[in-house]
């Protein structure tokens, strides 16, 4: 299970403040703590406050890379911001471009652009593609799978290794009216997405979105994570600093026989 750590995101107040103050230490400390707690990648999102998004992305990437070699996940809907990050990214360590829909109303070729950017960045750079298109986020299972199929076939058509592709079936806040059917729809979609190619494309979710606005954020996140892992989820953008959540990852992997059991299995997972 590959956890992409979510905390270096301008939506969080401490990161937002650090960006405003150009305070590297806050960012570097988050990078280290998330790496120590089991992050395979560090998500990097400038948020919405920074005026110069491209410059901020570069500053974040450079600040992190000064002290930490954990690969980064450049997170922006805007290709220009990703391109700015790629200019300073150490792509030797690997990386992920996060994220693109299949297409957009004002940009029919956004997925092509992401594939192109990842291809140019080097063989260790992947992309996260959302099961979303110009009509928005599908609410049902079938449309999620149909969009995922189009994404996979586009990757194949472009000669992009599907092992570098992460499909994100889009988790929505469960508290929103009528959204309680969505977790089941997503799990059903995952059951089908994994058969779209062989080996299956990776699947990821922005986990914390699920519990937005609820009083039991960690509990909701970790229970759904365990459910989704049993449906083939092999990656998630999540909070590695949530120890209970990381223990669920370790335990699920052990129960699915992906890690050999030992009495200290929780302790060794993150190390």
């Amino acid at each position, binding site marked *: 299970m590959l956890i992409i750590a979510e905390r270096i995101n301008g939506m969080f107040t401490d990161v937002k403040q650090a960006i405003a103050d150009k305070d590297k230490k806050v960012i570097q400390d988050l990078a280290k703590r998330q790496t120590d707690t089991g992050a395979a990648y560090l998500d990097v999102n400038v948020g919405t406050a920074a005026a110069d998004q491209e410059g901020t992305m570069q500053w974040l990437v450079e600040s992190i890379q000064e002290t930490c070699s954990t690969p980064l996940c450049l997170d922006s809907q805007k290709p220009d911001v990703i391109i700015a990050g790629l200019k300073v990214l150490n792509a030797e360590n690997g990386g992920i471009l996060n994220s693109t829909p299949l297409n957009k109303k004002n940009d029919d070729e956004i997925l092509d652009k992401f594939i192109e950017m990842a291809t140019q960045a080097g063989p260790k750079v992947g992309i996260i593609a959302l099961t979303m298109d110009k009509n928005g986020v599908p609410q049902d299972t079938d449309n999620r799978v149909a969009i995922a199929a189009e994404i996979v076939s586009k990757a194949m058509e472009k000669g992009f290794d599907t092992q570098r592709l992460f499909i994100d079936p889009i988790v929505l806040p469960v508290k929103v009216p009528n959204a309680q059917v969505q977790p089941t729809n997503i799990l059903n979609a995952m059951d089908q997405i994994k058969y779209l190619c062989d080996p299956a494309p990776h699947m990821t979710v922005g986990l914390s979105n699920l519990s937005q606005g609820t009083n039991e954020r960690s509990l909701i996140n970790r229970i759904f994570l365990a459910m989704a892992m049993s449906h083939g989820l092999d990656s998630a953008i999540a909070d590695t600093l949530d120890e209970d959540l990381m223990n669920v990852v370790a335990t699920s992997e052990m129960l699915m026989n992906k890690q*050999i059991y030992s009495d200290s299995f929780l302790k060794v997972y993150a190390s």
Partner: protein
Amino acid sequence: MPVPEIAESFAGSVNLVTLGATKDEGGTRSSTVTVGGAKNVVFGGSAEDAGRAPVVAMDVLDSKPKDWPDALVEPYKDVIDSPADWAKKCVEEFGAEMICIKFEAIHPDKGDKDADHAVKVTGDVLKAVGVPLVLWGCGNDEKDNQVMPKVSGAAKGEKCLIGAVTEDNYKSLTAIALADGHFLITQAPLDINIAKQVNILASDMGFPLERIVTFQSTGALGYGIEYAYSIQERQRLAALAGDKMMAMPSICDVGYEAWRAKEAKLEDAPGWGGAGDRGPMWETATATCLLQAGVDIIRMRHPRAVATVRNFIDQVWKSNS
């Protein structure tokens, strides 16, 4: 129809371990042995993926064995009273790349000899041969804790492989092996979960994972070899999948286990062929089987079995490299 390419590739690999310290490294060994490094299952990939060829460590007991069958005593009959001469014969006549001193006679039920005896044997063998040594206790926790730290000290700086530590008895030997610069054998009773746990426990004491060799316990042909095989295989697959707590090379004890089998040693069995051939064949079959599961170091006893197994290793690991 073309033959499909089915070779799998893996992210992880088995640790490389180099045993024995030469003069340059502060020891007195004239040769070293490097094992491990496999990036695939045995026969599973290219020649580069196969890693280093496995090696045979020939057993030398710390005093004259009491229960060995005639067929096994025969090749050593002129040296069996002297561990140093015995080791020398293994190296010079039978080409042993490593010697394993088994401190059998320190066991309370098998002679109860003291640490001075064990230290002397260690010193004598170190002087007699230049190959790296394996130093193996008697299996009685209390006695091993008394004697093996002194054996470790007697071979300080020689980068020996010393053991075996278990889940219930690991602290004293792990600490002393760390201090004396040795490599450590972690033992589990054919139980992959305990195997991982012992490695974690040793690691928690600050012992580097790169200096551990695992011993999963061994079953001979007809006596549980399938359990040993599948555990060795599972360890290799875990190493290849990137499990750092399972990425060590492994050792197994074929000599002792194969010669315990009645098929190997029973004299009065007219339908089974001569006892002189049966034992070496039993030992050979057990060893070649476990080599295919991914064992890196094999403890063996009969020189004919050793020669046959080495030939097998040469053909499988070395002929295509």
